[in-house]
């Protein structure tokens, strides 16, 4: 038989474990809330598909799910292009500046985010690589504060990165938001193709009396 290890937890260890569990739960709760927010935003973006295909569907110009999907795809693509041209131009401008910088300095290994001649010169940068160290004597782990490597300052060599990085960040985030809308509208079109032409009898009951038409509200 193998040796049994007795795990003894001190009070301090128990507290640490409980705190870690709470942290994990809170992290997952936050992820859940964030995910719900993303889903709500996608439903809101998907409503635009209804606006784009509304008149054609109501006037019964499209009469099959296939026709509705095809028309919705065309309208969706056009709307995506109308929305996406600004972020695409921003990303293109950022790329052009990067190419020009590489041509000027004759180096194609340039990282625009570094803290020496990049966008990092404008930020506080800490070294997290040496937080945990071993003590010279005894056992255990020493936890140290991270070392401050860089304080914000202006660097003339990094001027290209001051334009490249904002163009990439703003253009990239904006483009992904629009791509999310494109995905949302596509999903909405697939859902509408089923519901608009649905011949479900779920809530239909033939024994219920037919409601009389209210003549007061009819248009004379």
């Amino acid at each position, binding site marked *: 038989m193998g040796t049994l290890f007795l795990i003894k937890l001190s009070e301090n260890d128990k507290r640490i474990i409980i705190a870690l569990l709470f942290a994990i739960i809170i992290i997952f709760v936050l992820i*859940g809330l964030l995910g719900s927010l993303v889903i709500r935003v996608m439903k809101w973006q998907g409503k635009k598909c209804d606006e784009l295909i509304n008149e054609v569907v109501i006037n019964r110009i499209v009469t099959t799910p296939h026709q509705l999907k095809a028309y919705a795809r065309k309208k969706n693509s056009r709307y995506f292009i109308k929305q996406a041209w600004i972020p695409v131009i921003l990303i293109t401008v950022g790329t052009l500046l990067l190419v020009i910088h590489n041509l000027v300095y004759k180096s194609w290994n340039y990282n625009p985010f570094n803290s020496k001649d990049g966008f990092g010169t404008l930020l506080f940068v800490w070294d997290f690589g040496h937080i945990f160290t071993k003590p010279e004597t005894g056992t255990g782990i020493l936890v140290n504060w991270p070392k401050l490597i860089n304080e914000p300052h202006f660097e003339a060599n990094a001027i290209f990165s001051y334009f490249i990085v904002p163009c990439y960040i703003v253009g990239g985030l904006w483009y992904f938001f629009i791509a999310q809308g494109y995905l949302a509208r596509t999903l909405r079109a697939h859902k509408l193709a089923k519901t608009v032409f649905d011949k479900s009898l779920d809530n239909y009951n033939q024994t219920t009396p037919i409601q009389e038409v209210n003549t007061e509200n009819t248009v004379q």
Partner: protein
Amino acid sequence: MIGLLKAFGKGLLYVIGFPFFLLALLVFAVIGLLLFIYQIIRSIIYFFTGQKFFPELQEDKELRLRKEAANSANEIIDQPIEEHQDIVMPLIEERPMVSEPEGNSFETVEEACFNDTPLKQEEPEEEEEDVLASLTRDEPVKQETVEEEIIEEDNSFEEMKEETLKTAEDELTIAEDEELEEYIPKGSSITTDIDEEDTSNGVDIDYDL
């Protein structure tokens, strides 16, 4: 507490599904970029062929044609009724009695030709205003009476014409036996004292107005 657990459960699901969502997002981002490049190339071709950047789709064209047809039909229906409405004919009982004009017979040709009494046909403008006003006041239409009067006047004028012709013939037969009186038109005077020697300056004719 239950809400917190629900959010925790959703968080677990979203952590599992996040890579798939990210993959779908990246795929759509790449498709969008390719669409963008394809549309730019198409727009260059459309530019040189004179077409729009986004030409009209078949479904949109059909929708536009249906709307135009519906609007033209609505315009015909919505036209005001007054343009098509004919003047309402009042009842015969409501029409005023039109008296025959006095002095239907004329003694001489001059009276028939140069009678000062104006014809009622010269007053249509005033009566037209009355007709419009009478339409709003639901009164009998005077235009009809004017037309009747005109018709009656025409008839009476023909009668007058016949009578004058008869009198003219009678007068001619009388005139053959008698000397013709010197005809002097109304409102004019002719100077008889004309100096035949001095006619270089013309004949003076005075009009007594």
